């Protein structure tokens, strides 16, 4: 377990699980993005699950940082899934007109980890 800043990151095999449990100020969100990308490079993680169960309010800036982080990690070659979005958060973001494009989501951590491993299996079997 490693805690760069207030967001703990757990390593499960070759997948990193980041659990955001604090209310995100903009600078903490920015620092998280940078830290997690560095951690991927350092650990060679092939999967990343970002758990946002703890977030009761996600505004457009935080949503953008989360989406960007997912797209950046994916670009690096790490299968990334954002999990645990609360119903009120999903409803609020859609009503605002926000689209989390290019990022996979799953209901909870368990589903997210399963999705990551499915994607990795598919990648290694050469399928799409």
């Amino acid at each position, binding site marked *: 377990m490693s805690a760069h800043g207030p967001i703990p990151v757990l390593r499960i095999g070759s997948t990193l699980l980041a659990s955001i449990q604090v209310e995100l100020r903009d600078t903490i969100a920015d620092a998280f993005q940078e830290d997690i990308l560095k951690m991927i490079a350092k650990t060679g993680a092939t999967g990343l699950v970002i758990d946002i169960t703890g977030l009761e309010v996600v*505004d*457009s800036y935080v949503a953008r940082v989360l989406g960007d982080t997912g797209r950046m990690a994916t670009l690096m070659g790490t299968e990334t899934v954002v999990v645990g979005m609360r119903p009120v958060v999903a409803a609020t973001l859609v009503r605002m007109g926000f689209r989390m494009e290019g990022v996979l989501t799953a209901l909870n951590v368990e589903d997210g980890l399963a999705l990551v491993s499915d994607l990795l299996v598919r990648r290694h079997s050469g399928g799409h």
Partner: protein
Amino acid sequence: MAPCVLSSEKLVIACEDDVVIARRKVRLLAETLGFDPFTTAAITTATSELCRNTWIHAEKGTGLVEQISDGGRIGIRVELRDDGPGIADLDRVLAGGYSTAKSLGLGVSGSRRLTDEFRVDTVVGRGTVITVVKWKRPT
């Protein structure tokens, strides 16, 4: 008939933490008044967007968080006021997706979509006042 103000609390926006403090205040008021979770999230998120806009574009500003009533309903009114640069292209900003700073350009258009009443008064070079209202849904 103009709604009557039942309570009023001041906001000061001068740094990033003030955005967090403002949305906590609004969230607490919404919960205290018995707003449902979706309506609470809507006014809290709209407040967050508007406060961030004040902080980013004007660096500082002031605001009010008010409990209001129009007789039948109770609601929350949030007002943000700054002496910043003003919004030059208001139509584009209201349409959304037009970003001049960080974020997605959903701040103003998003908070408009999330609230029941939305008013913006802006003069380029003078400042901006944005007021939003969210009414409690009948239970």
